[in-house]
């Protein structure tokens, strides 16, 4: 197990995070939720950047307060609103990384910088949002880490750049099958094609955990009018939302409803639908 969070509670004045999750070895796990849902707080707690009220966190077998240089060398991190100082240039970062990580691959880093058009001799503060985002990812994947913790790594990137960064994560996983990634995003299409399993977080709570394949293949959206809804078996309904024509129901057994209710429309599920329904609908 790369990361295990059990009953983590972190209380702020106007927000409480209450979450349990895990990232298995060899897996890409996604964490999705709207802004302010608690994604970054989860990352900060796992990395020992903030204290927490209760719960148990193990990152590569160690609690956050026990993380030392040796463990930190084995992780690569991008954070939503943080990176190297804007007063440094890429050419300043190279010797810093070499000194910090025994596994830092200078050549790979520099070739990735060329591939992603990151200039060496320019202050980071002068970079565009996209360039900053790319640089953060390149730093995280260039030191042979076992586990990447990526908080919103694709924010600020255009579609093409997003795809190439996601490809980079796939390459990273192909190089060594025991590696893992925890990635958060509020762009669900990024995660759909990348993750093995997904957590949906809403107002500080995990509202759904599911295998991505399962979600895409088994989940469905039932569109029923009031009469149809009344006679619907609610056994496999996860969430219901009222609409102008009746209601929409999220199910994790679309086959069952298609078979038993041929007159009711059951659309294929998507991560977007799951998020909308689990965060906006009434959970059953």
């Amino acid at each position, binding site marked *: 197990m790369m990361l295990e969070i059990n009953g983590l509670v972190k209380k702020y004045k106007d927000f409480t995070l209450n979450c349990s999750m895990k990232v298995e070895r060899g897996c890409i796990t996604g964490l999705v939720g709207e802004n302010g849902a608690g994604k970054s707080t989860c990352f900060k707690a796992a990395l020992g950047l903030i204290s927490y009220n209760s719960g148990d966190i193990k990152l590569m077998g160690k609690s956050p307060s026990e993380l030392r240089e040796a463990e930190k060398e084995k992780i690569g991190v991008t954070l939503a609103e943080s990176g190297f100082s804007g007063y440094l240039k890429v050419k300043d970062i190279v010797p810093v990384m070499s*000194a910090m990580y025994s596994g830092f691959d200078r050549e790979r880093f520099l070739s990735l910088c060329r591939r992603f058009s990151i200039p060496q001799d320019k202050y980071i503060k002068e970079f565009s949002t996209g360039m900053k985002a790319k640089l953060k990812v390149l730093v995280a994947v260039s030191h042979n880490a076992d586990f990447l913790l990526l908080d919103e790594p694709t924010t600020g990137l255009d579609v093409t750049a997003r795809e190439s960064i996601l490809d980079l994560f796939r390459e990273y996983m192909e190089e060594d099958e025991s590696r893992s990634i925890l990635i958060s995003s509020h762009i669900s299409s990024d995660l759909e094609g990348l993750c093995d399993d997904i957590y949906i977080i809403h107002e500080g709570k995990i509202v759904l955990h599911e295998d991505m394949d399962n979600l895409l293949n088994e989940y469905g959206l039932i569109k029923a009018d009031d009469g149809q809804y009344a006679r619907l078996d609610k056994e496999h309904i996860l969430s219901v939302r009222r609409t102008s024509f009746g209601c929409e129901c999220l199910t994790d057994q679309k086959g069952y409803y298609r078979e038993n209710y041929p007159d009711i429309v059951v659309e294929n599920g998507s991560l977007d639908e799951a998020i909308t329904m689990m965060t906006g609908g009434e959970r059953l």
Partner: protein
Amino acid sequence: MKGLLIKDLRLMRNQGAVLLGLLVIVAIFMGLVSDVSPSFVVTYITIFLSIFTATTISYDEYDNCYLFLMTLPVTRKKYVNEKYIFGILSTLAAWVIGIVIGTVMLITQKTGMPAAEWIISSLMSIFIADVFMSVIMPVRFKFDGEKARYANIIVMGVILAVAFGAPKLIDYIPEHITESAGEFFAALGDNGIVALSAVIAAAALLISYICSRQIMAKKEF
């Protein structure tokens, strides 16, 4: 820790070089147009550069970089250690530069200052810079961003108030105390005063370091 030192050296090379250049030009200019003493030049350059160390903490804070730095193979303890080592090294470097300029001024101005007095005044300047750094560092660790700016102004204000206020306060202290204090310092002699200052500077640095460690250990990012 080596990585952090490289980072700060690079930051200093990019940003501090301009500051140092400016300080040297101002120092030389002052030496040429006015008759400031070489000791003033040493103190001035050393103190300004010692304050720059605290500024590198601001650079780490810029864009919330602190957070990211703590995810690198760096512990909070090592981060504090590095800042103090970098602070001591940069202060020493500035001091040496100040002494070189001061010595050149001393020779060209032909003030006839005895060598012993010159060495003592130079030593005192590094002790003062050390105390400055000792006060500023924990304050910078404690407060971020906007708060840090106010905290810095307050610290500067307090230091200036003490520097200007202390001599005036002496008038209000009963004569027998000032007299015995005078006797005490006279008995110490120049060497004794330098030794006492060194002890005070070292103690200030140690207390400051312990405070910074405590502050950093509890910091929420």
